């Protein structure tokens, strides 16, 4: 058991956990940030996608001990002072979600994509998003929302 100091959504947070605890469970069980979801535990579904220093990573296979002083951003930390990002807004406007469970991971992944490629092609979207499963199969709306957000920038 060890105390880890983490920078999460711009705040310093502390968690007393085993060193091999994945970031996912630190966020969910210890820091009350449950927007990051558990789906597979093996980096196969993308529901747990967060940003570490701006890069999309799977929190379910990232041990807390590997974070150090890197900056962690979760779905709860995207909106600025309650103002939704263009992607979050597009997700609402296009009514993307069905059950909604995977959508935090989808948005985190799409956010990283738009940072790399502000105007992605369909192929870019295929490549970046094909690790994120949606059991309700809202893929066509996700694709449209990414294009919409890209156009809104």
């Amino acid at each position: 058991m060890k105390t880890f100091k983490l920078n999460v959504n711009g705040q310093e947070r502390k968690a007393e956990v085993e060193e091999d605890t994945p970031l996912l469970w630190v966020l969910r069980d210890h820091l009350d940030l449950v927007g990051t979801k558990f789906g597979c535990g093996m980096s196969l579904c993308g529901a747990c996608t967060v940003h570490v220093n701006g890069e999309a990573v799977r929190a379910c296979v990232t041990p807390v001990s590997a974070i150090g002083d890197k900056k962690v951003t979760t779905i709860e930390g995207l909106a600025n002072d309650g103002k939704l990002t263009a992607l979050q807004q597009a997700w609402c406007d296009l009514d993307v979600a069905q059950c909604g469970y995977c959508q935090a991971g989808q948005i985190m992944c799409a956010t990283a994509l738009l940072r790399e490629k502000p105007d992605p092609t369909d192929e870019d979207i295929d490549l970046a998003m094909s690790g994120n499963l949606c059991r309700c199969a809202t893929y066509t709306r996700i694709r449209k929302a990414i294009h919409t957000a890209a156009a809104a920038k």
Partner: protein
Amino acid sequence: MNAPLDTMDRRGFFRIGALVGGGFMLGSWSSAEAAESGTAAFSPNAYIRISPEGAVTIFAKNPEVGQGVKTSLPMIVAEELEVPWEKVTVEQAPVNEKDFGRQMAGGSMSTPTNYDNLRRMGAIARTMLVAAAAKEWQVPVDECEAVSGEVIHKPSGRKAGYGSLASAASKLPVPDGKTVTLKKVEEFKLLGKRIGGVDNPKIVTGQPLFGIDQKQPDMKYACYVRCPVFAGKVKEADLESVKKLPGVTDAFVIEGTGDHYGLLPGVAIIAKDTWSAFKAKNALKVTWDADEKESFAAHAAKAAEVVKEKGANEIRKTGEPEFPDDGKTIEASYHYPHLSHANLEPQNCTAVFKDGAVEIWAPTQNPGGALDGIAKALKIGKDKITIHMTRIGGGFGRRLMGDFMIECAAIAQKLDGTPVKVTWTRDQDLGHDYYRAGGWHHFRGRVDDAGKLSHWADHFVTFGLNSDERTGNGADLGGDEFPSRFVPNLLLERTIFPSNTPLGWWRAPGSCALAWAIQGFIDEMAFAAKKDPLDFRLELLGDQPEVPPTGGRGQSYNAARMKGVLKLVAEKSGWGEKLEKGRGRGIAFHFSHLGYVAVVADVTVSQDGVLKVNKLSAGVDVGPIMNLSGAENQVEGSMIDGLSAAWFQEILVEKGAVQQKNFHEYHLLTMKDAPKVEVHFAKSGYPPTGLGEPALPPTAPAICNAIFAATGKRVRTLPLAKQDLSWG
């Protein structure tokens, strides 16, 4: 009882409803009760509450699994209440079947079973608000009208907001819901529009909504290890070693029973966080007392032997089912595998047992159904159980079952006083499902000289839960299943293999599998008749607009509506266009859950057999649409879900246990394979029906028929990913 509604919490508020109960209609209070309780806020029934400040709250009665009813059902109330949607706050109703009637998400039944009642609930409130205004202004009621959250006195133009009328309205008698005036459909302002889901802002910002997000003070996190073989019992578990592991606070065996639907035996591991519990699960040394003989491969070998023979029993026989020996009979065998629901939110439940009562937070599609199992397992009365429905991270039928709630409640009972959340790992979720039953069909069919289907025979080999007499849940073939009633000579037979694999309702139960096989073989019949697959189907549906159920039970089949959606989707999808070799279109239709859906698939298959689904188009007749955005989303998702399952998914059971452990072995379709989708709703004056399911069944056969059109290859076994589609 006499406390002002405003000062009550929501549970208190609804307790009033429970005490009153027995109204003429679900959700309706009695007049006396409304008068007594109505000091300030206006709440003429369980669904509506209007505060003096004008805040309008509408309660969503049924579980939200992604089918959109948390938005669409309150829209129905709001329409008749005549209130702008922007002013409405939607809250999930508590579980209270006395007030709300059956609160479940299954069978695409939320819309058809609630549409009329919810309209009346809204209309009651609107009628009372108008009456309150008329009384206050001392003018005739018929000079007053409700418009967008206000009552207007038409001659004078005087207006009053609903909030300012709330107190006065709450003192009026509640009218009989059967007598209130409903809007004309043409007057609808909200229903049929595109409305975003009410939880969207919370979903995109990651707020706690789902079962797995629940947290109680000082809660423990648990794992429950069941025998990999269904319903196997714990022989010996090394609890002491597990208890010494970091973060683990307790471990114990739960005896359980061999009942697949009850409290299943296992080892509970209690920890300070989920990770500690998961790690301990992997370290646990346990031996089981289980029968490992179940093997899907063995079933398949046996099915191959018997499916071409006579069936063990007859489902339906009409006309002269003996096939003439004239060389016109065609035979083919079809097979589809078991499927898992694979909800992205794994099964989970949170519970606390205190003072002999248990409180539960769960992503359940069927809270009422879970009550019985919990009461039995915990040996407590149903009145000692409170269930809170959370938002659900995918249902698809899995969460109609209460097993994951029963085990959590039993663990909570042992921990007396300490709240606990049980979370399943993905391998537990795939390994302890109630599976969509795999099955085999051997079809025989004959078209006569006029190219009409004259004979149809289907020997269906299916599964029963350790029974060769009774099919498992969702594993039967009804005597009225198409083309029954539409072909003069018909023989449907069934053989049931006893199996220890629990079977369950998977999105569009029965239909999700049957439509694929039946619409595939109908395509073979069209080819044998040398007819266009669309024309052959239209002819087969005949000229009788509505075909009643056989023997007076079941659903009548409105062939005119089905022909309507076939023509609609054919026209919209460019049916009949000449396409290059390797590209093809296929068509299929299916009636289920009171909905009529036809799908056209457009596919390309490369010469070396790589499949690309270009587009899926649906023609849908489910009556008038409630929420256009949600409705389109359901059809889009159902079609891609149908494709995903047919393309990739297969659950195999060997040595009594499921072999697939995670998404690398049980694939869901991803973005790169998602086709374009188009949804066309028929304009329809029939009563509205549900959309969570009916667009799924015709999708897989449309795709396989398109593969045939593209390649000349018939796909008679699923999943597609295992078939050789190469051609040329």
